[in-house]
Each structure stands twice: as C-alpha cells, then as structure tokens.
C-alpha cells in the first residue's frame, strides 16, 4: 500500500500539460492531487492529461477530485484526459459508471 502521493508535471507547451501521479489516491492523499490540479484548471490551458499508470488504488475522493477536471473541461471546452488506468482503478470508474463520462485513453501518456 503506497501511502504517499508524488507528482511529475510536464509542460509540453503553453496549452498541453501532463501530470503523472504516483501512489494511492485516497481520502487522505486526494487533497494533494487537488493542489496539483487547481492551478492547471485556473490557467488558460487547452489540454490536461493525467497519467495514472502508477496509481494502484483510488477511492471516491480521488474520483471526486478528477470530476473537478471534468467540470473544467465542460465549462471551458478543454480536454481533460486520463490515461494508464490499472485494472483496479478502471474497475472503480466502471462501478461508478464514470468510465464513459471521462475521456480515458488506453496505455500510458
């Protein structure tokens, strides 16, 4: 069980940002994910990719945090893309019926 959460941010250009997440996203760590996402959602960026290749576990608070990105995309016309979901994380999105609502790409970004 990974109790810490780490991030790697790659600014590909002025409009495209990749955020790689490392660790479990839970009620205790999701505020850190929100801290990382918030400045991106307030910036004039067209596309945010969140790479979840290294996330083994995500609970409802993690999903709720990512829903804020979904809201941003709908309000601004931007793209909020999730990639690299493990079988366990994808299962949670499917259980929540959110796998068809988010833009989810197979494979890693």
């Amino acid at each position, binding site marked *: *069980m990974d*109790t810490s959460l780490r991030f790697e941010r790659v600014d590909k250009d002025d409009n495209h940002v990749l955020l790689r997440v490392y660790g479990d996203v*839970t*009620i*205790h760590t999701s505020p850190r994910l929100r801290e990382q996402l918030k400045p991106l959602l307030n910036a004039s960026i067209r596309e945010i990719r969140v790479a979840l290749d290294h996330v083994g*576990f995500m*609970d*409802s*608070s993690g*999903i*709720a945090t990512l*829903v804020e990105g*979904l*809201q941003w995309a*709908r309000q601004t016309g931007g793209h909020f893309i999730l990639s690299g979901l493990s*079988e*366990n994380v994808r*299962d*949670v999105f*499917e*259980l*929540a*019926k*959110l796998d068809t*609502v988010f833009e989810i790409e197979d494979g890693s970004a």
Partner: protein
Amino acid sequence: MVSNCIQDVSFSDCESSHVGKLCLQMNCNSDCIHVLRSMVAVMTARAGMAELQSNRVAIAVDELFANIAAHAYNGKPGRVEFETWIGNSEDGCQELVFNFRDYASAGWGGNLEEIMKAGTEVHDPLSPGGLGLRLICSVADRCEHEVCADGNRWRLIFNINDREQLKGGE
C-alpha cells in the same frame, strides 16, 4: 509497525469460521486506513478472492470507514470497533463479513436499502456527493445499518463461493 490508532486487538474462535474472528478497537484517525487495508488483504487472501475482488472489498471497507470518520465523528478522533470473519450464511454459503460499530452522538439518517436499489444508475457525474456509499452498495453483496442508542452498527457482507463470477456482470 505498531499503529497508534489501535487501542485493543483480539483474535477469537468463531463457531462458523475456520479462520477465527479478528476484532480491533480503534481510535478513528488516518492511520486506521492502513491497518484496515492490511486486514482486508489478509481476509480476502484467506477467502481465496482474486485481486480485482480484493480491491473491491478494500474500496468498500475504506469508504465505510472514511464515512464514519468524516460524517459520524466530523473528522475528530472517535472510537470504532471493527470485526471481520469468514463464516457461513444461513443457506450454507461462505461469506466474508466486516462489522463496524461507532459511538457517534448522532445516528446516520440515510437508507442503505434505497441506495442499494438505486445502485449507481441514477447518478450525475458532475455531482459526486454520496459516491462512496454508492460504491459500497455496488460491490458488497449485502450492506446493513442499524442506528443504536449510542451510535451506529454497520455490516458489509461479501459472498465467497461465487467469486469467479464477479458482481457486476463481468
């Protein structure tokens, strides 16, 4: 690692369980999640559950504990008793059971049966409130809640015998 969230632990024989009953008395804080996750890993392994199902059980236990911590105790420390065992249901099927008992001053006023009936079908993705309870009800085979005079009693039950056929239709 000995966690400061554990106040008492016991492991007793359980008439219907071949692995006994594990009982923890915890002081509700974030360390408890780690302890509970370890307990879930042990019990789902003993139940012979596959990794995906074990993850679903972990989600349900995590979400229920988080719900108690956030809503029953408003994020403040509080006493929670936790029990888990593998037993037999009345119809002879094996089941993995998790009991939670909190001593919060206010009983939870929701209705788990209604949430289980609704499942996750009626859901606005932009309003994720209540998602945790819906996830619990979608992965557990039975969820029970009882308001007590001095708190709440919660029970999650997962059937074991049909685990090759995961709940949800996969």
